[in-house]
């Protein structure tokens, strides 16, 4: 990393480099793009993945933290920080030209903090209506409901996107861009649609059956979890994580618990680690099964959907017996797990493993080689490796494009460096690769569980934790591999019992942001199928 430091100082002389949990570089707002570009172009170790883009109200200034890492080695990370003291008209430079994933994230930051990004091609608010008063994540936000009354009228969606562009001679120009042409045939897929897997709104311009352009409109079920968390204690925040991507509930919660445990230096007992990892992998199987089912249903095979749900039910029963919840399982707590495993747990899980293997074979015979299904998956929704990296598409979808992005392998946490498993990578980048990846990952998860299930050590399931947890001042990042991709937690603590800023990186947002790219030129039916193969969950986006 010494070379990187040199590179940073060579590019921007005034950069302030700190060695915190991560290498943190603070630069002035007009130098950030230059620095990011230099890091991006670094041949030896290109920092070409934008993991987080965190908008922050730091009190005096409004700023953004960027966590960059290298697509070759995800554990090589750099945090860039920048900010502006202008609270009336805050302007920062966009990095959308380097990292496509920044596009939606910057729009989110604009909606929630009011920072506009120069050179972002479409600076509409994400999540919020254009007429929303105030910026919710600012500390001086006025939550008075009278300012933003609940409306029962439908609101027009803005089609003319404002933006701020920098001309060649360095002047800033405010202009607008039309999202759709005047005579585009636009159909609304969502917000109420059987195949958007939640309350997602894709406005799709069609040319006959062919998708010309997609405009993603989200925020119908935005709950403001990040804002809510700022006024809650850490144990209280935990229950929100289950409600992000409810299919990776346990993994999300594991991520937040680890972030807090690391910050508060809590040692998690070995037994709790085992239970956590087994439950994580069961969660992953659960999520992949649902993804498989939902995808087959999207492609019109209702029967397959029911088979998948049937197998998933067994996992839910195990969850139910272990921790009293089926979907929202509330198992992890800070310091360990809430409930010890029940007496029959090992027996149930061991019975499930061979059963699931047999069913995987059945799925294979039933759907994986079906000539109709093949025609609807192979060469459909192609995403190149470069696109996957640029859009930060992780999980089975990213690995379907040939990008090795499994956090469990790159930055092993908990027990993942002790167990043996394969990272499933396919290079085709089409729907079929993503589809097969999921089925193979189920097999790998079974393999992981097999290695752990008989060796659960005795001992406590939860460390002694103070009733009120105060994290020392600082910034804490934690990245885990959720079922749909990389899930991340960022906590900025100022020594209080509640976080100053909490940010979740949702894998689904990256998946959705890639949809307009990979669906362009495909048929409308395939758009649905690709959506199934990407497997996004909306509450994860509308945090």
């Amino acid at each position, binding site marked *: 990393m010494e070379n990187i430091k040199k590179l940073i100082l060579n590019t921007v002389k005034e950069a302030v480099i700190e060695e915190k949990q991560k290498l943190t570089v603070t630069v002035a707002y007009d130098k950030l793009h230059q620095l990011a570009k230099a890091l991006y172009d670094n041949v030896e170790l290109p920092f070409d993945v934008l993991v987080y883009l965190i908008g922050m109200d730091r009190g005096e200034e409004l700023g953004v933290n960027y966590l960059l890492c290298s697509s070759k080695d995800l554990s090589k990370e750099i945090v860039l920080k920048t900010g502006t003291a202008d609270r009336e008209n805050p302007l920062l430079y966009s990095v959308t030209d380097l990292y496509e994933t920044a596009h939606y994230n910057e729009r989110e930051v604009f909606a929630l903090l009011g920072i506009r990004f120069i050179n972002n091609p479409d600076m509409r608010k994400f999540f919020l209506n254009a007429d929303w008063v105030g910026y919710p994540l600012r500390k001086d936000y006025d939550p008075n409901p009278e300012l933003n009354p609940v409306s029962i009228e439908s609101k027009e969606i803005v089609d003319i996107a404002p933006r701020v562009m920098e001309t060649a001679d360095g002047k800033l120009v405010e202009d607008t861009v039309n999202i759709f042409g005047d005579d585009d045939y636009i159909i609304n897929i969502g917000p109420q649609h059987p*195949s958007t897997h939640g309350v997602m709104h894709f406005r799709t311009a069609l040319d006959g059956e062919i998708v010309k352009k997609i405009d993603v409109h989200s925020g119908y079920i935005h709950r403001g979890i990040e804002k809510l968390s700022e006024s809650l204690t850490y144990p209280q925040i935990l229950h929100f994580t289950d409600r992000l991507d409810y299919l990776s509930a346990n993994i999300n919660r594991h991520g937040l618990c680890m972030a807090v445990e690391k910050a508060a230096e809590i040692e998690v007992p070995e037994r709790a680690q085992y239970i956590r990892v087994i439950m994580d992998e069961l969660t992953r199987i659960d999520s992949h099964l649902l993804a498989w089912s939902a995808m087959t249903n999207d492609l*019109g*095979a209702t029967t397959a959907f029911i088979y998948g749900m049937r197998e998933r039910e067994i996992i839910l029963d195990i969850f139910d017996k272990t921790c009293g919840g089926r979907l929202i399982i509330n198992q992890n707590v800070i310091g360990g797990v809430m409930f010890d495993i029940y007496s029959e747990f090992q027996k149930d899980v061991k019975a499930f493993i061979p059963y699931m293997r047999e069913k995987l074979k059945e799925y294979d015979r039933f759907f994986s080689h079906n000539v109709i299904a093949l*025609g609807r998956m192979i060469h459909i929704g192609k995403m190149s490796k470069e696109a996957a990296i640029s859009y930060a598409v992780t999980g089975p979808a990213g690995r379907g494009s040939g990008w090795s992005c499994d956090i469990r392998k790159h930055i092993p946490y908990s027990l993942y460096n002790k167990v043996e498993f394969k990272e499933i990578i396919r290079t085709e980048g089409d729907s079929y690769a993503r589809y097969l990846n999921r089925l193979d990952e189920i097999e790998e998860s079974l393999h992981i569980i097999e290695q752990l299930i008989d060796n659960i050590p005795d001992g406590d399931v939860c460390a002694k934790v103070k009733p009120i947890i105060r994290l020392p001042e600082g910034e804490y990042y934690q990245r885990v591999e959720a079922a749909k991709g990389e899930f991340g937690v960022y906590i900025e603590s100022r020594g209080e019992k509640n976080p100053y800023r909490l940010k979740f990186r949702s894998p689904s947002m990256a998946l959705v942001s890639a949809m307009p790219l990979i669906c362009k030129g495909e048929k409308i039916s395939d758009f*649905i199928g690709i959506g199934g193969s990407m497997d996004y969950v909306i509450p994860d986006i509308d945090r």
Partner: protein
Amino acid sequence: MVLNYSQPLEISNLTSWLDSTLRGNLSEFWALLIEFVLVAVVLLTAYAVIALILIYAERKITAFFQARYGPNRVGKWGLLQSVADMVKILLKEIVRINRSDRFLFFAAPFFMIIASMLTFGAIAFGKGLHAIDFNIGVLYVTAVSSLGIIGVLLAGWSSNNKYSMIGAMRSGAQFVSYELSAGFALMTIVVLAGTMQFSTMIEGQRYCWNIFNGHISSIIAFVIYLISGHAETNRGPFDLPEAESELTAGYHTEYSGLQFGFYYLAEYLNMFIIASIATTVFLGGYMPIQVHGWDGFNQIMAYIPTYVWFFGKTAVLIFLSLWVRWSFPRLRIDQLLNLEWKYLLPINLVNLLLMVILVLTGFTLTGLFPGLF
């Protein structure tokens, strides 16, 4: 049309008795009028009842394919479920759509239902249970059944809904393509049977069903007919016009209440019609299984009434259609057209030619073994 065996359970005994009584007591005009009305009432009732039974059967069989029980709350084993559904549909409000083409919107369901009813009338349900017996029966059936597509296209156009529009356009392309295959498959058998009249065709299959008689060629025609018939009824895996996961409900998205009920009914009836035409043309229609020379066996078979034979054979085909429907994912529009234009149609044309050769050279089963049949 007369079999040589006693058939005590036949309804034709009843109908001929009714006919002779009416004619004996009334002038011919009145007798015919009463008979027409009676036939119409019976057909309409049968139409509704068969649809209800089919809806129940489909839901139950689907459920069993999917490891579920299916309807089991209304009545014993859920037997009254479809009656309850029908009552619900009748009671539902008919929603008026803003800026829709009112007249066409209301007219569309009638096209659909009338087309399927016209076809329904020409089906031979059993001996003597055949309302109209044209000498061009096959032609008539293909002609009127294709009227239904007008209902679909009108519905899509008049609903003022983009989903409906896409669904209807898909349906148009699909119907035009598959009608071709279905027609050719039927023509293949017409070549074999040498008639277009259903009654003669059935009679000709007494000892040897058409599907066996034309062996290889017939079987190909049979499979093609089933596939294209399946596609014509807009049922999975060819349910693109409805495509629940893509277009919510396709061309009938905006319909509610009885109007939706018409589409629903027509869909199920079309499935039945396709199966019954396939039965009539390929599987000997209402004819019991008869073997040349085995009089005892033939007598036993003849005790089972012809309508039971007809519905039995049709049920097997309907089950097949359900089995296919619930096993496969939906095709995409280009896959659908590929299947028709690249596979079914060329195979069909070759097959037709093959059948002509078979018939001309006497290589049909009846031609090869004249003594057996």
